């Protein structure tokens, strides 16, 4: 039981290191958007999701409505439903409802990837360990990023606010080089988003992200349906 927990924690260490740097950027971004250090850490501790948090900060900074916040999180984080669905088929019989309610909180892209790569059924101690280390990386990175954002000169924090976007680019460009369907989605989504920002500025940024993402993914799904095999390969 204890061993499984430690094994999970160990499997979470590479994720923790990656999360630390991403969430550092998120902390800086929060300060840039006039959020407090406490708010930045509060968001990371309760959400544990990169893209959703960045979009959420955009909604808060723009004074958007709560409906906009809900829709925004729904669209951006909908993929977690699928990951949860997939992992629910891999759980050990000791996974009762209480464990599911706790572990469900920690399903992220990377944790999902590691968990689904396990050959044995997933036990609660393993999952708690696998979630704990990345969670600590995510929270502490946000805290330090927010503090740094508060004390560093404006020229440095301005440059650091590019970190998260740089990371997003590093996520989407390499697969798009080999996959023209993905390249199509990325370019279409960027184009729609640019049109919203410069030609339809009355549409708030949260809604602009939702609409751009839905238009481009639905268009791509209609023109280029993806087979189960392709999805499996691209999923991780």
């Amino acid at each position, binding site marked *: 039981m204890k061993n499984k927990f430690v094994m999970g924690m160990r499997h979470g260490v590479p994720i923790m290191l990656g999360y630390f740097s991403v969430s550092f950027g998120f902390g800086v971004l929060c300060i840039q958007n006039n959020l407090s250090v406490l708010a930045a850490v509060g968001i990371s501790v309760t959400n544990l999701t990169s893209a959703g948090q960045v979009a959420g900060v955009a909604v808060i900074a723009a004074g958007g409505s709560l409906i906009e916040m809900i829709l925004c999180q729904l669209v951006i984080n909908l993929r977690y*439903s699928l990951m949860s669905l997939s992992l629910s088929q891999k759980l050990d019989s000791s996974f009762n409802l209480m464990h599911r309610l706790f572990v469900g909180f920690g399903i992220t892209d990377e944790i999902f990837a590691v968990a689904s790569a396990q050959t044995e059924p997933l036990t609660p101690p393993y999952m708690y360990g696998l979630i704990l280390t990345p969670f600590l990386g995510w929270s502490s990175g946000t805290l330090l990023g927010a503090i740094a954002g508060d004390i560093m000169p404006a020229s440095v924090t301005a440059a650091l606010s590019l970190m998260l976007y740089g990371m997003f680019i590093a996520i989407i460009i390499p697969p798009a080089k080999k996959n023209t369907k993905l390249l199509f989605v990325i370019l279409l989504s960027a184009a729609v988003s640019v049109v919203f920002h410069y030609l339809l500025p009355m549409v708030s940024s949260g809604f602009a992200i939702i609409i751009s993402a839905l238009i481009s993914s639905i268009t791509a799904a209609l023109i280029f349906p993806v087979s189960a095999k392709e999805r499996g390969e691209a999923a991780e």
Partner: protein
Amino acid sequence: MSIAVYIAVMAVTTYLIRVIPFAAVRGKIKSPFINSVLYYIPYAVLSAMTFPAIFYATGNTVTSIVGTVAALIMAFFDLPLIVVAIGSSASAFIAGLIIGII
């Protein structure tokens, strides 16, 4: 509106999205169309969040564009995420210094 309300709504929404299928739903989604949309969504979301926001992220269009181009080039050559992130920021910072001198 209080920031705490925003954060609470954000957290509860995200939690429910994750936990409802985990705790309740069984079986798999069969529709190829829905599965295709769900496959594309993460890329579409990241792209829409990055563009055009990255063009004015630093508060200065020139340094932002320098950082964007640096990120695109480094990502094209498959450099690790953290290298692209820091390299993009560093390029923008250096561009800012050069502009300051000029």
